C-alpha cells in the first residue's frame, strides 16, 4: 500500500474543497495539501449550479436584509450567529472570485450585475449568465493550479477516514485507474464531498452526488444534523429531473397550470403582477412553490405528461434575445432535451430533489465534534440553511465556509504533532481488506442497480414534498431491508482497473446510510417546517417541541439514534413566514412594533 504524507487532506474537489485548498495554501505555503477527488475537480457537481450566488451589492440592500431573508427562509431553524458571519463575508468572497477571473455578468458601466432570486428581498444574486456554478468551479480549479503546495489526487475515491488517538489523521483512497489503495496521512481532514440528492429517484443531481463524505463522518460517530430537510426544486425537467434555474423566474418567468392560470396566487404568494416582485409569486421560496405544485396536482389542475404531472414554466414574454443572453443554457436544454423552443412554447416542469439542507454537524468554524475533522459545503450542516435553503445561498456558502474550513484545518494541522504512522498503516490495511473483500466476495445474488432503484423509489414515496407517518415508516423499514440485502450483493466485475461497479457498490452503501439518517430524522420530527411538511396531524410548526436541530447518530447494524440540539437565536425571534402581500404586511407590522 502506497503511503503519502500530507498536512491537510481535503476530500472533494468541488467549490468548497477547492476554496478550502486555496485557503490552506494561502495561510501557510509550507503546508502539504492533498486534494482527493473521485472525479477530476472540474467535473464536480458545483459545475451544474445555474442561477447565481448571493452577496449584498446594491446600495439599497443591507446585511440585515440578507440575514432576515435567510433566517426567515430557513423557517428559523438557522444558527443565527453563523448566518450573521455568512452574510457579512459573501460579498468579499465573491469579489475575491472576481479577482481570480470569474466572468461575472456586468452592468454597462462595468460593475458586477445582480439579479432577483426566490425569497430574496433585494436583488443580490451575482451571476455568470446561467452557468454560474460552472464558471465558479472552473475559476477556482484553474486558480488552484497556481499553488504548488496543492497536490491533487484526481480520480481517487475516498473509502474511509483513519482515526487514531481520538483524532482524524488521514484517509484511505482507491486510485480508480489502477484499483489500488493508498493511505494519505494528515493532521487534519476537510470533507467537502457535496450533497446526497441521488438517494432520491427524480433529482437534479449528477451521478457523483452520493453523500460519500456524510457517510464517512457519520460512521465515525459524527452526527448528521437536520437530514430530514431535503429541498425540492420546483422547476425541473420531467423524467430526468434536470434543472431549470430559479433565474428563469428571477428574469420574469411565470408558472401556470393547465388553465394558463398563475396558481401561486392561491397559496399566499400573490398578488399576481405582470413583472416580478421580490419575495412574491414566482419569486417565493422553493419549499412553498413545490408545495403549491403538490396541491395543484391534488386539485387536478396540472397537465398529464409522459413522466407524471407537470405545470408550465412560461418564458415566452421575455423574448428570444433576452433568453439567449441571460438564460442560454436553459434555452439549449429545453431545445435539445425536450424539443421545446422556450421563446415560442412554455416548458413543462415538475419539482425534483435538488439539495440536502442537513449534513455533517459542524460549528461556525466548520469543525466537527471529531478532533481534526472539518466540513464545508453541501455535505456539512454549518447552520445557515435551516429548514429550507434560499436559492443562491449555497454557492456563496462554498466560498465563505470553504475558506473558513481551510483556514481552521491549517491552524489545527500546525497545532498537533504528526501521528503514529505504524498505527495508521495498520488501520489502513484493515480498511483495504474490507474494501477488497466487497469485490472478491462470491455467491451474492443482489444487483446493485436493483437495490439502488428500490432505495430511490422508497425515498421518493416516503420523504417527498408531503409526508405521512405511515409511508415514512414504510420507507424506514424498506431501507432496513435494503441494508440487509446489501450484504448479499453480487459484483460481476472482480478486476482492478477502472472497476466502476465496485465503486458503485461502495457508493450505494454510503447512500443507504445517509438515506436512513434522512428517513428516521423525518419520521421523528412531528411538526411541519420548511421543506419538511406533514399531513398527518402535524401540519403546523411546533416551536415548543421542535425548534431544535435533529441529530442522527450512526448505529452499526441498526436504525440511527435521533436526538436534538439547540438552535442559536440571536436577533430574530421565530415569526410567521409570509410572502407576497401578506409578507409585506407582516414586515410592516414588525417594523411598527419596534418603533
Amino acid at each position: 500500500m502506497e503511503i503519502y504524507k500530507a498536512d491537510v487532506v481535503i476530500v472533494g474537489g468541488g467549490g468548497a474543497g477547492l476554496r478550502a485548498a486555496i485557503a490552506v495554501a494561502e495561510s501557510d505555503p509550507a503546508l502539504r495539501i492533498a486534494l482527493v477527488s473521485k472525479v477530476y475537480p472540474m467535473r464536480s457537481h458545483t459545475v451544474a449550479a445555474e442561477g447565481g450566488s448571493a452577496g449584498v451589492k446594491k446600495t439599497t440592500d443591507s446585511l440585515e436584509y440578507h440575514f432576515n431573508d435567510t433566517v426567515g427562509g430557513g423557517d428559523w431553524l438557522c444558527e443565527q450567529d453563523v448566518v450573521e458571519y455568512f452574510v457579512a463575508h459573501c460579498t468579499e468572497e465573491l469579489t475575491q472570485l472576481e479577482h481570480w477571473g470569474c466572468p461575472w455578468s456586468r452592468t454597462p458601466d462595468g460593475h458586477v450585475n445582480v439579479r432577483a432570486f426566490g425569497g430574496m428581498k433585494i436583488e443580490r444574486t451575482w451571476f455568470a449568465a446561467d452557468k454560474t456554478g460552472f464558471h465558479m468551479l472552473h475559476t477556482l480549479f484553474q486558480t488552484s493550479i497556481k499553488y504548488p503546495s496543492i497536490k491533487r489526487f484526481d480520480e481517487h475515491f475516498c473509502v474511509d477516514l483513519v482515526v487514531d488517538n481520538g483524532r482524524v489523521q488521514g484517509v484511505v483512497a482507491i486510485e480508480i485507474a489502477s484499483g489500488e489503495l493508498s493511505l494519505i496521512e494528515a493532521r487534519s481532514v476537510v470533507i467537502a464531498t457535496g450533497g446526497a440528492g441521488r438517494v432520491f429517484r427524480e433529482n437534479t443531481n449528477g451521478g457523483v452526488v452520493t453523500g460519500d463524505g456524510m457517510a464517512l463522518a457519520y460512521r465515525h460517530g459524527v452526527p448528521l444534523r437536520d437530514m430530514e430537510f431535503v429541498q425540492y426544486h420546483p422547476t425541473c425537467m420531467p423524467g430526468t429531473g434536470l434543472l431549470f434555474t430559479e433565474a428563469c423566474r428571477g428574469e420574469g418567468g411565470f408558472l401556470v397550470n393547465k388553465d394558463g392560470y398563475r396558481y401561486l396566487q392561491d397559496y399566499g404568494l400573490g398578488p399576481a403582477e405582470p413583472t416580478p416582485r421580490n419575495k412574491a409569486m414566482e419569486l417565493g421560496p422553493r419549499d412553498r412553490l413545490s408545495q403549491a405544485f403538490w396541491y395543484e396536482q391534488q386539485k387536478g389542475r396540472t397537465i398529464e405528461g409522459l413522466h407524471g404531472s407537470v405545470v408550465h414554466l412560461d418564458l415566452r414574454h421575455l423574448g428570444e434575445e433576452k433568453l439567449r443572453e441571460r438564460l442560454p443554457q436553459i434555452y439549449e436544454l429545453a431545445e435539445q432535451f425536450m424539443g421545446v423552443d422556450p421563446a415560442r412554447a412554455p416548458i413543462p416542469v415538475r419539482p425534483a430533489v435538488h439539495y440536502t439542507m442537513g449534513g455533517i454537524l459542524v460549528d461556525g468554524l466548520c469543525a466537527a465534534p471529531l478532533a481534526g475533522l472539518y466540513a464545508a459545503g453541501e455535505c456539512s450542516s454549518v447552520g445557515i440553511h435551516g429548514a429550507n435553503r434560499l436559492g443562491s445561498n449555497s454557492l456563496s456558502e462554498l466560498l465563505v465556509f470553504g475558506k473558513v474550513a481551510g483556514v481552521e484545518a491549517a491552524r489545527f494541522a500546525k497545532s498537533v504533532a504528526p501521528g503514529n504512522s505504524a498505527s495508521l498503516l495498520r488501520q489502513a490495511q484493515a480498511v483495504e481488506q474490507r474494501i477488497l473483500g466487497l469485490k472478491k466476495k462470491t455467491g451474492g445474488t443482489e444487483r446493485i442497480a436493483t437495490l439502488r432503484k428500490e432505495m430511490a423509489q422508497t425515498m421518493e414515496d416516503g420523504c417527498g414534498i408531503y409526508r405521512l407517518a405511515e409511508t415514512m415508516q414504510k420507507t424506514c423499514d424498506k431501507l432496513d431491508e435494503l441494508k440487509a440485502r446489501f450484504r448479499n450483493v453480487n459484483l460481476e466485475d472482480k478486476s482492478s482497473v477502472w472497476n466502476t461497479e465496485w465503486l458503485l457498490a461502495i457508493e450505494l452503501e454510503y447512500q443507504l446510510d445517509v438515506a436512513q439518517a434522512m428517513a428516521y430524522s423525518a419520521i421523528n420530527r412531528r411538526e411541519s417546517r420548511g421543506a419538511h411538511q406533514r399531513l398527518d396531524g402535524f401540519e403546523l410548526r411546533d416551536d415548543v417541541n421542535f425548534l431544535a436541530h435533529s441529530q442522527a447518530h450512526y448505529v452499526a447494524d441498526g436504525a440511527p439514534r435521533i436526538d436534538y440540539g439547540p438552535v442559536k437565536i440571536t436577533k430574530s425571534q421565530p415569526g410567521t413566514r409570509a410572502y407576497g402581500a401578506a409578507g409585506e404586511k407582516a414586515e410592516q407590522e414588525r417594523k411598527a412594533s419596534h418603533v
Partner: protein
Amino acid sequence: MNKRRPYVRSMDGWWRKNPFFVEYMIHEGTALFVAAYAGILLNGLVHLSQGEAAWNVWLLGLKSSWYIGFHVLTLIALGYHTYTWFKIMPRTMPPVVVGGQRLSAWAITGSGLAVAAAAMAALLGLVWGMAR
C-alpha cells in the same frame, strides 16, 4: 502491481475514417492545382523570355484538348479552393464588431467570396478588353 495498460489506437488511414477529414484532404488537395497552374504560367513566362517563336509554341500547346480539359478541371478545383478558403476564414480572425454586433461567420465568408468574384470579374474584363 499496477495493472494499467492503456491502449493506443493506430492513426493509420485516419483521414478515411470521417467524412469531414475526407473533405479536408480534398480541399487541401486542391492546393496542388493552384501550384500546378502557377507552374504552367511560370513556364509561359520562361517561353516569353526566349522570344516570339518559343512563346507561340507554348500558346499552341495550350490549345491541345488535353490542356483545355486540364484547365476546366483546374478552374473547378480553384473555385472549390476559393470557397473553402473563405469558409475557414472566420475561424482564423479576431471577431469583427460592426455597430456593437459581432459579424456572423457567414457574413465574413460571404464578403470574402463576393470580393473574390468581383476581382475575378474585373480581371476577366481587363483581359477581355486587352484581347479586343
